[in-house]
């Protein structure tokens, strides 16, 4: 049985730029040009100031670890257990938290510094991933 990974839909009209940037090795988030508020999940309209003038910005690619869970009960063949899901808060925009996947049960501490890396899925799109900062 061939096990396919779950590829993200990279054609969504609100989010495709996130994956296009990842394929170029860049991490981006959406923000409002009028009020500077980060918008995540990204929306074309800023609910904070009402502007439609929103755009993608480059992020430094650093953050801090907000939460994590080690999955020990496998529920999908593409994700053998154990693995750990990390929730990382961007240093540039604390309103934005992104998910990362780490194999096994690595030693982690709340608020530890994290850095992005880019995982090209075999024959598929690229995902921004996270690991403890060097």
């Amino acid at each position: 049985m061939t096990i396919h990974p779950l590829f993200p839909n990279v054609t969504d009209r609100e989010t495709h730029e996130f994956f296009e940037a990842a394929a170029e090795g860049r991490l981006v988030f959406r923000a409002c040009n009028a009020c500077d508020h980060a918008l995540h999940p990204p929306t074309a309209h800023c609910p904070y100031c009402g502007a439609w003038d929103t755009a993608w910005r480059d992020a430094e690619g650093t953050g801090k670890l907000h939460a994590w869970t080690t999955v020990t009960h496998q529920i999908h063949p593409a994700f053998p257990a154990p693995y750990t899901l990390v929730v990382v808060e961007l240093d540039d925009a604390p309103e934005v938290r992104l998910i990362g996947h780490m194999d096994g049960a690595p030693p982690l501490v709340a608020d530890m510094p994290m850095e992005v890396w880019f995982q090209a899925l075999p024959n598929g799109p690229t995902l921004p991933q996270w690991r403890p900062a060097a």
Partner: protein
Amino acid sequence: MLDDETAFLGRDKCAVVGIGQTAFARDSGRSVLSLATEAALKALEDAGLTVDDVDGIVRADVDTVTPYSLAAALGVNNLSYWGDTGPGGVAPCMMMGLAIGAILSGQAKTVIAFRSLNGRSEARLGGSGQRVGAETVGGFGTYDEYYLPYGLLSAGQTFALMAQRHMLEYGTTAEQLGAVALACREHANLTPHAQMQSKPLTMDEYLSARMISTPLRLYDFCLESDGACAVVITSAERARDLRKPPVLISGVAGGAPPDRRAGMMFPVVTRQDMTDLGGRRAGETLWKRAGLGPSEIDIAQLYDCFTISVILQLEAYGFCAKGEGGPFAASGAIRRDGSLPINTGGGHLSEGYVHGMNHIVQAVRQLRGEADMQIAGAETCLVTGGPLPVGSSVVFRKAS
């Protein structure tokens, strides 16, 4: 949010007059339409009504049984109102709102609200371990493309992240989560139809059970069940002439958290306060609409997809302060002899998982005085719906 309590026209104007359910099982061996039909017929029989009285049917958005299919299977000839609400387990409480709206606006006189699922044998929520992944996930406004490709796949993993934050911020412990599991199990042990009726659970067994997604263990997760529940709602005035003592719907309210995020369940991880539920806002509105507060609630059926969701809702609805849900649960307050007995039939954790609808059936049983594990003197009951991404809630009251 509703600031003027007099603006709510529905207080005590409608009542649940009939309840029905199928057996809860791991494999019903039947279609979900067959289950829904049985539950609805039992609810009508309980009310002393017939299919000829029914003119409205409401359901959850994720139910595969439609109102018109159920009407066809029941033989309803006068269907003139139907509606869907949700998402998912948020639906049952909001269905009470749909029913009130239909009845008070004259669009229906007698409404069936139902939920039917083969949640174990056919459509398991959160993954079965059997399937092969679809190639492409998310998009089309779901925002799941930010989550599923990483292996964040289920409600259980999402609530595990929320539980971890609650532990980090407030010192909540595994034993406090376990107190919720044990209370629900004790109540199921006294409820003959509960799936876990014959299986006691000790704290040692809870703590030594296998981890599913840290910090949540096996017994932090609700059951997966096949089954259906249905209730019949009509005006309080008509209810007085029917077979059973009416149980009034005093108030109903939904609520969204102030840190709103597009998408479904997973974006909760990006809320600045991951453990602030929409239920907190729902509760603020609910108490005004119902004309009472948490101190006047005798019993509660709190949506227990996971033990942590009970602890978060004890805080959200004002039974204790933020961060004190764990000690509150561990104090014994939520047990049958406590100040706020919860999930008095065993709840989703130990009675069965009918996606919130069995909580409404249980509330009505208690307020009629006909529950298996009857709480003496129970006159008011809070029922809450699924806690993500928005909250929903109802206060039921025994008619005086």
